[in-house]
């Protein structure tokens, strides 16, 4: 029971077949047992979690609960939680305790979710393997010699190993979807602006998107219902009418629930470079969508191949500026010994940041420099617009776009660490959604020959979350990939 989905647990809790205290306690025990293997959690708050669980049980008893009340949750450690350490996977914030909570953390707490702890991540959310964490890599529950993906690797591994039913993540270039794919779970990146960024340690402000990781698309929808909303503290947060993201999921649509849904298949997503097991699994999934009544449309996104270089100009540029506040003056790490101000800055930042963060700060500083701005940053913004135009054209002939989430399944720890570009290529299919600010989900669609999970990505136009979730949900109703539990962590 305790390894069930959010939706199932919600029914059990509300039917009083299970209490939140029982559920939370059991999962805390699972975390204690598994975390040394996985390194998915950086902070576990047993006392706080059990106190919240008791409150949740009281709410359920009083009949004032929501669908999420009493469900245990983990936050990626980039999300500020008042009174509970937020490290961002960095030595810089090793002992940082925020005096306030992020909007999404507030919202999920308000819904009654029980925060059990904070999950490991690539430092400042920069990475695709979780090997860039100051606190060590996260291991993949399906094969602990492999990475769990990144940067939300801790959240993905925790959900995959059934340590929590759901977790938050952030997605700047695929940081929810890629680890979800590599860990065999579902991960949703909503439309930019649907969830407030208030309280997320900023990496690349124009791309950062908080989202949800869970076993199923339905669970992601349930979390998004609570996380979405206008927040006046974030000027890029959108003021839109409230939406029920599960609204299409419950309708009884008969044998052909996707009848009328047009699935776009961009030829750029089906070329060389993708492992054959993945290509085959995606083809099989597409056949599955057809059997559910969907039609498919072949199309082209001619500029999407520039997504990666555009991303690796814009995101480091914004990061180089966003990370300037970590200067040792007011909070966070400060070098123990220094001669003067400049020396303090240099030593503090040399010690506080890891190699990948420094690499991106350098790249970002370079592309914004006088004389280079037009050639790099401005050009990248122009190409970003062209990519968005490609997608707008595509969505005139289709409702969602489908393809692989990642060109490879989980790789071994250390395999890609010497070649940053090879590492960056992991995000080749996910980055475009961030550049265009549009929603996308990764769901499990099979396993490769090594028994590692394969992710299927479903992208949609801005605010098409409900449809994206519906397509994913209908697929999950017909398949059981999302129900598989890694053998080592089976209860």
């Amino acid at each position, binding site marked *: 029971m305790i390894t069930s989905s959010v939706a199932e647990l919600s029914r059990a809790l509300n039917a009083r077949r299970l209490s939140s205290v029982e559920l939370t306690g059991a999962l805390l025990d699972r975390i204690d047992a598994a975390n040394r293997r996985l390194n998915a959690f950086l902070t576990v708050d047993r006392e706080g979690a059990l106190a919240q669980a008791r409150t949740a049980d009281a709410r359920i008893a009083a009949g004032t609960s929501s669908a999420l009340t009493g469900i245990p949750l983990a936050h990626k450690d980039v999300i500020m939680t008042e009174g509970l350490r937020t490290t961002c996977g960095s030595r810089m914030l090793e002992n940082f305790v925020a005096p306030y909570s992020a909007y999404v953390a507030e919202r999920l707490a308000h819904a009654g979710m029980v925060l059990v702890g904070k999950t490991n991540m690539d430092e400042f959310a920069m990475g695709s393997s979780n090997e860039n964490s100051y606190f060590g890599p996260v291991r993949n529950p399906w094969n602990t010699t492999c990475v769990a993906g990144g940067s939300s690797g801790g959240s993905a591994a925790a959900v995959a190993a059934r340590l929590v039913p759901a977790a938050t993540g952030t997605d700047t270039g695929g940081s929810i979807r890629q680890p979800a794919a590599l860990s065999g779970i579902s991960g949703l990146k909503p439309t930019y602006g649907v969830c407030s960024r208030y*309280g997320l340690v900023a990496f690349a402000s124009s791309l950062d998107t908080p989202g949800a990781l869970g076993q199923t698309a339905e669970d992601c929808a349930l979390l998004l219902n609570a996380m979405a909303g206008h927040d*006046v*503290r974030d*000027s890029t947060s959108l003021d839109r009418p409230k939406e029920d993201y599960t609204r299409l999921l419950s309708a009884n649509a008969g044998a052909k629930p996707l009848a009328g849904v047009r699935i776009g298949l961009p030829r750029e997503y089906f070329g060389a470079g993708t492992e054959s097991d993945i290509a085959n699994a995606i083809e099989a999934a597409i056949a599955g969508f057809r059997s559910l009544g969907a039609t498919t449309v072949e199309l082209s996104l001619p500029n999407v191949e520039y997504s990666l270089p555009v991303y690796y100009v814009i995101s480091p540029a914004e990061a*180089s*500026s966003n990370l300037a506040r*970590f200067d040792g003056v*007011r909070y966070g790490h400060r070098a123990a010994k220094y001669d003067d101000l400049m020396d303090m800055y240099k030593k503090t930042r040399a010690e506080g940041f890891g190699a990948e963060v420094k690499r991106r700060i350098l790249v970002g500083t370079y592309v*914004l*420099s006088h004389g280079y701005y037009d050639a790099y940053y401005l050009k990248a913004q122009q190409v970003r617009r062209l990519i968005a135009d490609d997608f707008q054209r595509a969505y005139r002939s289709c409702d969602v776009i489908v393809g692989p989430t990642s060109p490879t399944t989980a790789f071994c720890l250390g395999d890609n660490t010497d070649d940053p570009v090879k590492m960056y290529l992991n995000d080749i299919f996910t980055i475009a959604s961030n550049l265009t600010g549009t929603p996308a989900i990764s769901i499990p669609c099979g396993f490769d020959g090594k028994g590692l999970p394969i992710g299927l990505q479903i992208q949609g136009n801005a605010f098409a979350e409900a449809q994206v979730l519906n397509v994913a949900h209908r697929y999950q109703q017909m398949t059981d990939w999302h129900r598989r539990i890694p053998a080592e962590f089976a209860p």
Partner: protein
Amino acid sequence: MKWEVVIGLETHTQLSTASKIFSGASTAFAAAPNSQASAVDIALPGVLPVLNKGAVERAIRFGLAVDGTINKRSVFARKNYFYPDLPKGYQISQYEIPVVRGGSIAIVSPTRGAIKVALTRAHLEEDAGKSLHEDFRGMTGIDLNRAGTPLLEIVSEPDLRSSEEAVVYAKTLHALVRWIGICDGNMQEGSFRCDANVSVRPGGEAKLGTRCEIKNLNSFRFMHQAIEFEVRRQIELIEDGGKMVQETRLYDPDRNETRSMRSKEDAQDYRYFPDPDLPPLVIDGAWIERIRAEMPELPEPMAHRFVADYSVPMPDAVQLTWSRETARYFESAMQAPVGAHLNGKTAANWILGEISARLNRDGIEIEQAPVRPNEFAQLLARVQDNTISGSIAKEVLDAMWAGENGGDADAVIAAKGLQQISDAGAIERIVDDVLAANPAIVAEYQAGKERAFNSLVGKAMATTKGKANPAQVSAILKRKLAG
């Protein structure tokens, strides 16, 4: 060689909003260090800026006042540099597209008369905190109360030609931002700070010389002194065969000199880029029109109106419109129901002379003057209808100022018996007495000594304690001496 001085000013005006430009923290001055620094102001991880509409509104008001172009869409940019009192490691400012472009400020130059100084732009930005280098056991203290205070940086074209002209421009701008209520103008508290770009060139040369930017001009006197010093330094340097380098210099008022801070080569690369946390600032026409409808009459047109409506000489009209309160005092007096058409020139003289002197003496502002405009108008009416003379009026004003007789001019005059003696018979008797008592002076006058006449007038006035109508005394005395 005749040298021409070329000056442009960059002025940081602190906008008078209650809260900061991107956070809800208070902007009040002199609070305990760091007591007015919110999570946004100290740049905690994860916090985001939210633009204060009040700051935008004030920028729009300024744009309307100088007849500039208010950009319908302007962009906030990050200016990146490291300094301990800059919490985010960047300052949010406006770079390529400022909120206001162009416009001009009319000034009365001491050398060139009425001219218009063109403005390049005015842009919104946030202030940094303060570094306190003294008395921290060898360390530097950081106070972030000021961090995030809204500023409007107003940049002039290099249209000014002398230190005096620069000061007049700065004073006019200072008066204007207070007039339209966007800045309290308190220079001690740093609400109005200027940097001057100064260069010299041979007279008649069209090309601009290499300039230096002088920072830290926090009073008009320092601005004058600093520019004077800098102009001399530049001319001497060039005349000695030296070459000017573009640099930033700091004015040291203790030594009255400017010192090099950094040269252009050391200038930082600020890596400006549009702030992704803030959407472009969009100002629609309706917003501008709403603010336009609430704009007060501006000093320059008001001065012209004072000339036309009340026959005030232009220099006096300019002085009266230096502050909205003074102008309002003047106009209220002119419109007071005292049953007389007051002479505007006289009223202006009194306000800029007698009233102003008493305000300075008491260290108060005109809106706190104990004599209100209608009471002041009553006093002037009594001068105009010859109830009292001008010099007696000063005595009456003092009594009114002190609150005697309820501050009422007529009551003071009556109580003190200060009504002017205008009865011809009475004056004739006084004159006869003076002539009889001063035969020596009369003799001097008749011997051709003109000054003796004034002496006799003085004697007659003294006898009446100044109450005799001086014009009548003169006329009667002249007639008697001729007779």
